[in-house]
């Protein structure tokens, strides 16, 4: 039944809580979003970004107005999520290779969008990996990480600092 509806009508029905409407919209656009992300990003994090795009769409569904065209609206969400992911990893990249070290070592590629893509991550301890992920992938403050892991604020800072130094040493060795 939902298959005959326009994207905009489907979106309206989805706003009313109709799961089938979302499923139809997903069926129409998932391939295009995934294809676009594969074109713009070049690593395995495409899956993460793709998932975040549709969950973001779900979170913001009530902001959609029926007068908007659906495709441009979805495009804006896709682009925002993609750029946001790139920004987060760029922040970590800058920590590992600060300006003073540029020339000695090259920072991880700009289009990497997940911490998982950093070489040398496997050399870190499980807790260091977890803390780096919370800090750079999830954008959490030191205080929040400390609360969640039930450790001190200083301990979090120390572990982040040690992990970054370790990654930096690996980058410079290369």
């Amino acid at each position, binding site marked *: 039944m939902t298959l005959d509806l326009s994207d905009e009508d489907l979106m309206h029905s989805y706003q009313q*809580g109709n*799961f089938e409407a979302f499923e139809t919209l*997903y069926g129409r656009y998932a391939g295009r979003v995934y294809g676009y992300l594969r*074109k713009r990003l070049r690593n395995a994090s495409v899956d993460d970004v793709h*998932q975040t795009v549709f*969950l973001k769409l779900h979170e913001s569904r009530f902001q959609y107005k029926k007068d908007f065209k659906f495709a441009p609206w979805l495009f804006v969400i*896709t682009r925002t999520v993609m750029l946001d992911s790139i920004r987060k990893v760029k922040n970590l990249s800058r920590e590992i290779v600060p300006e003073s070290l540029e020339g000695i070592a090259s920072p991880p590629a700009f289009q990497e969008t997940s911490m998982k893509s950093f070489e040398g991550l496997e050399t870190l301890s499980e807790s260091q990996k977890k803390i780096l992920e919370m800090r750079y992938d999830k954008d959490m403050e030191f205080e929040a990480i400390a609360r969640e892991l039930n450790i001190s604020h200083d301990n979090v800072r120390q572990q982040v600092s040690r992990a970054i130094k370790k990654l930096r040493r690996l980058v410079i060795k290369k």
Partner: protein
Amino acid sequence: MKSVDMDLEFETFKNSEEISPPKALTDNILLRVHKDLNPSGFSVFKKLAVIQFITGFITLLFCPQFGVGFFNSLGLMGLLMRFGDTICMAGCGAVFLGLSAFAAAIILRPEEIRVIRHNQFIQFPLLALLAIGIFICVGAPILATLGVSWFLGSVVGAISTLRLGLFFRSFNH
């Protein structure tokens, strides 16, 4: 980004090659959205109870229930008393639960309201019994016959005002 660049980027998006995402990824997204669009009756009831707690507090400012109120005046109860004890109790119950049902219709998400409507003969009576239980705990003298009037009035009032709230809400969408 300039609007021309944005337009070009949108064209790239529109003309992107369609590549099917992995099935596990699709399943995960659909499952999460499905779960969110189909909240459990219990989770919705918890929200309804919180709304009831707040609106109930407000109601007690102007309409004491079973003699429990924040002021000494009878407020709305004084007006309803003119129609006799039974009507008064039913009216007070309708105001008490009706206000929360109206607020729920305005505040909650459509899928949550759908759950309430689907279980309205469970959720509202349960909420009314919970309220009666709390009134008993704070020492309200509740006579069985008047308690039944209050209970019936509150359930009917809640179901009616939920519809009224949805009617108002439909103007905003």
